[in-house]
C-alpha cells in the first residue's frame, strides 16, 4: 500500500515527460502544473469544478485539474495544452473559427475538444458534442464559434 505523508517526491507523466516533483498529498494537480512545472495553460477559474478553465486530459479523458490531487495522478498520462504543440487539429480549428475572445477559457475548451476527438474519432451525435461542451463556461459567449470549431474536427465525409 502506498502511503504519503508530508512532502514527498512523486513522478508525474506530463505531456510525455516524466517529472520528479516534491508535493504534499493535499496539493492539487492544477497548482502543481502551474507552480512547479510552469505549465500555465490550465487556468484557475472557479476552482470548484464548475467552469472548466483548468481542464486537462488524463488517460484520454477530460478532468478538471482543480478537483484532482497531484498524488492520485501518479502513473497516469497527463496532457495539457502545452503538450498539443501548437499545431494540433483542435488548435487549428479554434484559430480558423476565431473560437475565442478573451481566451481565458480557451485552454479548457481545447482539452475537452481534443479528448472528444480522441474518444470519438468519427462524428458523434449532436447530443454527445453538446454534452461534452457543456462542461465548460465561456463568459465571452463564444459558444457558436467553439461549436463550429468542433465541426472542423469532423470533415463532412466523416458523417455517418
Amino acid at each position, binding site marked *: 500500500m502506498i*502511503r*504519503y505523508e508530508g512532502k514527498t517526491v512523486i513522478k508525474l507523466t506530463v505531456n510525455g515527460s516524466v517529472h520528479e516533483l516534491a508535493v504534499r*498529498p493535499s496539493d492539487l494537480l492544477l497548482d502543481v502544473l502551474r507552480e512547479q512545472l510552469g505549465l500555465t495553460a490550465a487556468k484557475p477559474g472557479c476552482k470548484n469544478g464548475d467552469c472548466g478553465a483548468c481542464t486537462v486530459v488524463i488517460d484520454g479523458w*477530460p478532468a478538471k485539474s482543480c478537483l484532482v490531487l497531484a498524488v492520485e495522478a501518479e502513473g497516469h498520462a497527463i496532457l495539457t495544452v502545452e503538450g498539443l504543440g501548437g499545431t494540433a487539429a483542435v488548435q487549428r480549428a479554434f484559430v480558423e473559427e476565431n473560437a475565442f475572445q478573451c481566451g481565458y477559457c480557451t485552454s479548457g475548451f481545447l482539452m*475537452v475538444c481534443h479528448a472528444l476527438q480522441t474518444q470519438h474519432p468519427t462524428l458523434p451525435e449532436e447530443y454527445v458534442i453538446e*454534452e*461534452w461542451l*457543456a*462542461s465548460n463556461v465561456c463568459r465571452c459567449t463564444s459558444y457558436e464559434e467553439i461549436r463550429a470549431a468542433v465541426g472542423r474536427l469532423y470533415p463532412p465525409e466523416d458523417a455517418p
Partner: protein
Amino acid sequence: MIPFNFVYCRPATLEQAYEAFGQLQAEGKNPVYYAGGSEVITLCRAGSIAPGAVIDLKEIPECRVLSADREDLHFGAARTLNDIKESRLVPLLTLCCGRIADHTNQCRITLGGNLCGTILYRETCLPLLLADATVTLFGGRGLHAVPFQSVFDGRMQLEAGEFIVEVGLPGWAAQAPHWHIKRTTNEKIDYPLVSLAALCKDGRLRVALSGVCSYPFRSAEIEDVLNDSSLSIERRVEGAAALLPEPAYSDVRGSGQYRVFVLKNTLQTLLEAFSNDQI
C-alpha cells in the same frame, strides 16, 4: 489549494483499505474514504471538513468491476459515472448517471462517491431502489452482500470503516421499461427540483424520487396510488403528492410549494406516457 495537510493512502486490496482506516483512526487522523474526490476536495477547500487522512479506493480491483453475466450486472463503487454510462448495461442507470453534474465531472465522480456523498440528491440510488439491487460492503464483517434498501434510508448507513465494494443489479432491470425525468430551475446542469426514475415490473410502476424532499426515497404508498387504475390520472397525481414522507424541500432553487407543483407536473407526464404505452 487545500490549506492543510493530510495523509494519502492508496491500498491495493480491500483488507489493506479497512486496516488503513483502523490504523489512521487509531492515530487520530479522522480518515475518510476517497475515490473521485470531487466532493472531498471541494469540502476541504471550503473548510467544511478537515480529514487528517484520505484512503483512495480507486486501485482496488474489486471496486473497479464492471460486468454483466446471465443473471446479474455488477458495478464497482470506484467506477465513474462516465464508465457506467459508456457501458450502457442498464439504460435507467445510464440516464441517471448522465444527468449528474457535467460530462467532465462524470469522468471523475464515482458510483460509491455519489451514493455516500453529503450532497443530498444521490441520484444514482434511484435505479438501485427500483431494481431490488444488492450492495456488497467490506468492513468488520468482511465482504458481505445485502439488499441495497436495507442499508439506504436516504443516505448510506455504514458501520465505521465500512465501505461499498460494488452494486449488483438483476438482469431484468436492463430490459425493463423505464423513464427518467429531471427538472431543474434554469440550467440543464444543476441540482434537481425533481429527479424521477421509474421502472415497470410485471405491469406495475415503480417510482423513486430525489430533490423533492431532503433525501431521495422510494415509497410503497405513493406507488400504490400511482398504480390504482380505478382513479383518474389527476386523482392519482394529487394522491401521490399528498403522501410525501416529509414536507417538500425548500431552498434557493425552489420553494417546497414549487417543488410539489413541479412534482405533480412530472407525475402527470409519467402517468400519461405509461397509460399510452410510451414508457
